[in-house]
């Protein structure tokens, strides 16, 4: 913490006491916290805690007018499932409104509408010229009747530039076994879950009361996607899959607990309509760089899949739970970040008894709309200490990402409800 502060002081352009000032357009000064809100960041970056909401803050969006909306996993005691925040002069924000008495994950805004999801439905609220919701109790229901069987229940959402909305419907199982997560239980033939879950569904963003029948199963064979975003450069949907769990628990004769901790990779997929990423029949082995047959479907840890499944665009450490994906289009950060992806890794539990991993935000460089080169851990130490990360007992768990109007990066934490903002000190 101390070294982070002193390093920061060296690099910052303006220093007042122990605080660094970011001068933006003169009239607005964002002040990074002296300890960068406890985060470890690359040189030149600073962070502040925008707010401590004490809620389960899932995804976050910032409207073009600068209003911050946060979707909560479950509503507050006052029945508020969406929080609206307004920033003061230094970047610290206060909750100015709350509405939407439903829990959920997804939230997304355009100039005109705020979209938010429960675990079964997607709503939208009209935004006024100031980016505020004016009819908080009368949202329009865009999509209804999506499957929620508790497991992988989040309905994450994003929009493309052609008026379509994409919704993840997670598979309500680990690997489509006859008996979910039970040792030795084999896979159900022609996995029936895939009819209505385990994929991304496409709907119209401006049509109301749509159900499965009105939408299209845009991509299938995706176990659970929490982070997804539209890449405007390649005009393509990218998603982060949560890979399957428990290879060792359920097939101890095929995988030891060390292998199980590293298998399978968490994968980034570049989707086209009709793609099949292979769940539950396959999983991706990052060391072999191969799509493997799942043990529930006749695999033995060595059998490579011969099916025609979509290969991942990039792979990340197993079980680290990518909960948000964001393509960075701002100009505040240095050139290399432009059009690259930030990914918030919520952190693992299924690496035990090996140390847990994650609880960080990664940067994935992109070139011409494709991942280019290795990722780097961008914002680390949400856990508080390496020991807390290893033990799977982090202080904070990064869950949502949003780009501010000035190009800063917002990160939510659904453990304590902290909202972070990462800024770059322009030289």
């Amino acid at each position: 913490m101390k070294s982070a502060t002193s390093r920061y002081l060296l690099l910052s352009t303006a220093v007042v006491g122990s605080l660094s000032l970011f001068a933006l357009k003169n009239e607005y000064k964002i002040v990074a916290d002296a300890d960068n809100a406890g985060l470890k960041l690359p040189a030149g970056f600073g962070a502040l805690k925008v707010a401590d909401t004490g809620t389960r803050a899932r995804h976050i969006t910032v409207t073009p007018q600068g209003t911050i909306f946060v979707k909560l996993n479950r509503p507050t005691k006052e029945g508020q499932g969406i929080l609206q925040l307004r920033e003061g002069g230094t970047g610290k924000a206060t909750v100015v409104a709350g509405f939407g008495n439903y829990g959920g994950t997804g939230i997304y805004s355009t100039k005109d509408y705020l979209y938010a999801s429960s675990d079964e439905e997607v709503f939208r609220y009209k935004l006024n010229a100031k980016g505020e919701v004016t009819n908080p109790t009368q949202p329009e229901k865009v999509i209804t009747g999506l499957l929620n069987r508790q497991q992988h229940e989040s309905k994450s959402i994003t929009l493309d530039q052609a008026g379509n909305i994409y919704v993840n419907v997670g598979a309500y199982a680990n690997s489509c076994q006859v008996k979910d997560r039970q040792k030795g239980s084999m896979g159900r033939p022609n996995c029936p879950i895939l009819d209505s879950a385990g994929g991304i569904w496409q709907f119209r963003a401006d049509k109301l009361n749509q159900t499965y029948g009105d939408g299209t199963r845009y991509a299938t064979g995706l176990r659970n996607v929490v982070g997804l975003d539209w890449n405007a450069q390649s005009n393509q949907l990218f998603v982060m899959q949560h890979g399957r769990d428990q290879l060792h628990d359920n097939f101890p004769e095929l995988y030891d607990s060390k292998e199980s901790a590293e298998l399978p990779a968490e994968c980034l997929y570049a989707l086209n309509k009709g793609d099949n990423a292979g769940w539950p029949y396959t999983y991706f082995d990052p060391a072999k760089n191969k799509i493997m047959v799942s043990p529930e479907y006749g695999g033995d840890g060595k059998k490579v899949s011969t099916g025609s499944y979509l290969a991942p665009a990039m792979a990340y450490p197993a079980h680290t739970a990518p909960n948000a994906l964001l393509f960075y289009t701002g100009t505040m950060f240095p050139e290399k970040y432009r059009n690259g992806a930030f990914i918030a890794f919520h952190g693992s539990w299924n690496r035990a008894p090996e140390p847990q991993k994650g609880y960080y935000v990664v940067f994935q460089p992109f070139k011409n709309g494709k991942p280019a080169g290795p990722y780097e851990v961008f914002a680390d130490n949400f856990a508080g200490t390496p020991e807390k990360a290893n033990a799977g007992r982090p202080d904070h768990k990064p869950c949502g990402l949003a780009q501010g109007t000035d190009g800063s990066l917002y990160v939510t934490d659904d453990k304590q409800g902290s909202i972070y903002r990462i800024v770059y000190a322009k030289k």
Partner: protein
Amino acid sequence: MFVLGALVWAAMPAAAQKKPVAKAKPAAKPAAAGIPAASLALGKTLYAQNCLSCHQADGGGVDRMNAPLTQTTWVLGDKTPLVKVLLNGMQGVEIDGERYANVMPAFDYLTDQQIADVLTYVRNSFGNKATAVKAAEVKVVRAANKK
């Protein structure tokens, strides 16, 4: 509002969490009055093999995914519903005011003795203190559980 057990355990170093029973007296002595040491030792192994990946080394579970086994009404309460959790699995049940998204599979393939041992271990680890579960008790619950 948050899982209390998790917060308490978060303050402890990782190494300490790996051996929750280490705090109890040396191996020769029973950990608590009336708790058979052999059952505890076998239960610990069974826990590591079958339960640890979800409920974690410290028994604290995983936020909103896997329920904690620390001071819950299920762990410390009546043994019949507790044994049934292992025989039938569990999903979508609110536990002490919190919901968990993951699935607890059935462990009906474990023997009566194994279920007794692992539950005896759980009921006397992670800060829990409760009477031992006996194989004969599991047998009775299993017989009544059959449809």
